[in-house]
């Protein structure tokens, strides 16, 4: 029994995303050790039917994207793959910014996005949490469900992620300046 195999057993049994913090607690290990175990598990799963997904300090198991068609046929509930333009825009913002509050999304889109965000949250494509910077607001971040629909193991696998994310940090500063009086 290694930390890595215990980790695998726990993830399989719980069948839901778990945070590194929570895992460290269950495993009675340091978070750094858990991270090492995650790294090893990820490597060991390479080329297998199961993959490890990572997002916001949480991890989850899923089937590898190569088996998409095979598994989709076993799925009972019909998946809705339709996304409106508004939804696609909001999702891209949430993805490439690594989460955003409504004001930030509205600023970029130039229109109010509250209904779009609600619909995305209901569909489980974004997670609605309390904004860490302001408890009166919601913060929307990508969900594991969204990564799954996109067939990616982590947000970094999105095309152009590193460049765009960096570019956005710069733009965000400007936006803050410009949006000060709004």
């Amino acid at each position, binding site marked *: 029994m290694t930390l890595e195999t215990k980790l695998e057993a726990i993830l*399989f049994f719980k*069948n839901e995303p778990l945070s590194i913090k929570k895992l460290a607690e269950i495993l009675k290990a340091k978070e750094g050790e858990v991270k090492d175990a995650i790294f090893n598990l990820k490597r060991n799963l390479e080329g297998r039917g199961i*993959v490890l*997904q990572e997002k916001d300090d949480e991890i*989850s*198991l*899923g*089937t*590898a*994207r*190569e088996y*998409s068609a095979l*598994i*989709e046929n076993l*799925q009972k509930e019909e*998946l809705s*793959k339709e*996304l409106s*333009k*508004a939804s*696609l*825009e909001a*999702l*891209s*913002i949430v*993805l*490439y910014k690594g989460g955003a509050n409504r004001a930030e999304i*509205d*600023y*970029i*889109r*130039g*229109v*109010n*996005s*509250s*209904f*779009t965000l*609600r619909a995305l949250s209901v569909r489980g494509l974004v997670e609605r949490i309390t904004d860490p910077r302001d408890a009166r607001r919601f913060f929307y971040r990508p969900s*594991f469900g969204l*990564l*799954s*629909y*996109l*067939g*990616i*193991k982590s947000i970094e696998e*999105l*095309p*152009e992620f590193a460049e*765009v994310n960096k*570019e956005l940090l710069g*733009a965000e500063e*400007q*936006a803050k300046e*410009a949006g000060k009086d709004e």
Partner: protein
Amino acid sequence: METAYKVKTRVFEGPFGLLLDLVEKRKLFINDVSLAEVTEDYLAYVKTAPPAEISSFIVVAATLILIKSKSLLPSLDLSSEEEGDIRSLEERLRLYELFRRLSAGVKKRFGQDMIFHAEERKNEMVVFLPDEQITRERMMELARGVIGAMPKVTALPEVPVKKIVTIEEMIKRLTERIEKSIKVSFRDFTRGGKGKEGKISTIVGFLAMLELVRQGLLRAEQEGNFEEIMIEKA
């Protein structure tokens, strides 16, 4: 893929979507020159939009008018705030352009090669385990709370700014003023409103004036920089 902006058939997508379509249709980059060039098309669309939607376009319309005015009247002095508005519009439009490009990529991938999480176990062991938080009163309070948090029909979707004044209203007001007094100064007409609302009102007024001049209903005159713009019925 989008080669032409179809004003009549296109669904409402917000001011940036419209503006970007117009700029891209002409294969232009985003800058003051291209924005001045598409201003009229933009306004033409805004005028055909349903009243409930016009409001979301009006702030951008106001900035476009500024850009257009500056290109028509190079002597026009812009305040630093106005220059800031123009810069900010260009930046926001570039940001929006970036996300529109990224969302095309997201669309392409969405639902293609998917990852699936495991289904729920069918015969999971069930142990009846209530929680002392579950009481009749608490259940009622929570249900009521959920109802209160649901969106109501009265909240109009996708409308960002308060409706201040429409172009048509301004044109109507302008026409009435002109008909009453033959010659009136532009500043007098817009009554030099204060703050954001006043500024927008001035800008929309200016736009309305340009429109009437274009239609040949009005004649406008400005004797020099900073001078009053005098308008009269043609």
